[in-house]
């Protein structure tokens, strides 16, 4: 049986990957993917804890999160499409009308 710590190590790596991806990648779609990776890191955590603690709650939360992430991705892609139509840019550096 794989110990809990391995799961946690994987999920931490995933989370940090997503975090860094959002912060340094400039392509809108890759940023969206990075956010999804962060959500899935949390999912992995929840499912691993759920099996370790022998409680169902974690798996139910994971199911909720999968559904919510789908909704979020749908809205995100829609926004990308509208921005893309307006001007040919999926690069976030070009979205720069507003700045302080």
């Amino acid at each position: 049986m794989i110990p809990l710590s391995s799961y946690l190590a994987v999920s931490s790596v995933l989370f940090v990957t997503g975090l860094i991806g959002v912060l340094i990648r400039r392509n809108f779609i890759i940023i969206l993917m990075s956010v999804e990776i962060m959500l899935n890191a949390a999912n992995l955590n929840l499912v691993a804890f759920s099996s370790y603690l022998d409680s169902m709650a974690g798996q139910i939360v994971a199911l909720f999160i999968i559904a919510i992430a789908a909704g979020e991705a749908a809205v995100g892609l829609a926004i990308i499409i509208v921005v893309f139509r307006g001007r040919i840019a999926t690069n976030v550096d070009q979205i720069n009308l507003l700045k302080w």
Partner: protein
Amino acid sequence: MNFAVTDIGAVLPEVIVAVYACAILLIEPFLPKGRQEVLAYFGFAALGVAFYGTWNLMRTDLTVMNGMFVLDPFGNFFKLLLYVAAAMTILLSMEYLKREGIDRGEYYAFVLLATCGMMILVSASDLIMVFLGLELMSIPFYILAGFKRFEEKSLEAAAKYFILGSFSSGILLFGISLLYGLSGTTNLQALALHLRGAELQNPAWILAMILLVVGFGFKIAAVPFHMWTPDVYEGAPTPVTAFLSVGSKAASFAVFLRVFIEALGGIQSDWRFLLIFLSVVTIVLGNVVALVQTNIKRMLAYSSIAHAGYAMIGLIVGDSLGIFSLMIYMLIYAFMTLGAFGVVMLLRREGVEGDEIRDFAGLARKDRLTAFAMLIFMFSLAGIPPTAGFVAKFYIFMAAVNAHLTWLVVLGVVFTAVSAYFYLRVVMVMYMKEPDEAVQLSAPPGVVMVLAVAAAVVLLLGIYPSPFLDYAQEAVLKLR
């Protein structure tokens, strides 16, 4: 697992708002173009019925749905505030949408869905519900921010809000997963029991706490998680900005309070220092950067950041007086901000965006009443008596003094004085400058109504606040 039919009664206001929102989406395609305004009255009906329901459930205090959802006076106080804010947003929107050529019925459905998310948020008693409510609030807001889809600024606001919003929910979610792993439960009361009298051995608690603070910090626009605020406030349609700054902030503060005081109250000494730090930088940066803004919507964005810093003091204090002062602060902040954004909307006319501070030049000559209303809101935001803003700051600072945080009060007062500069500059421009052109302001009845109500409430709360205070006092979150 047990499920009682009576549980439905407790969530009836949420159900009503959600059903009305779906009904709007269904009716919308069958309405001829230009008749979409009818759906706004649908929205009022939904909010009115929900208001009546919540009003009747006001004093009930029970937990339903297996501890998922709590119906208590604290949540109901925020819900009533949210209904009023949503109704005022719809009033502000009706004419605006037509003028901008975006009068689509979905708009009202999204406003209702966001309201429903906030209602779930303020009543959440389980971390699943917290996340669900947060997303149900945020996703409609991503869409609403980009509702002027022919305008690049608005799209940019939507894109930025989406990236940073979903990023912050990812962080919050990781924090939630850690909390679950550490305690074996996602229920707030069970978490509180788990933490009672416990010594924190595991550093993962601190990590989970930090992740939660980051997630909520984004939603309430606390520095250093405020980067999205000015951009989104400027780019989004003005009524959406008003709702975003009032509704989402109030609901996020309510859930911040519930999670941190109720569930993590046992380890208050661990998170207190972190929040004090956030509050200080938020007050300082919000007020200082607002000084140099030339766009009124950006200025109000930084002002909203600064106000989040003040309101956080109530959370830091964390006793019943602190919670009470935060509730009062959110109530008063809602009315003065809605009013200020209402005035900004009046300045919008053909060819002129009307959101630069210089557009206010000579407003007092052109339209005496509007200028006077703006004067009231600016005085109130600056915290000058006899307006409500003074009462709000007074209670926050009183709570902090009682908790021996006098230095924080001194800092808050100093930066309130700084903030007077940029609020009063607007007043100065309105009253002392000559108008550059003789234009008649349009005065849509909806906006005028919002201004009248907001100005009246701000003055009433400033002069005779006791009925509101008594009411909030009754609704303070029960500390267990």
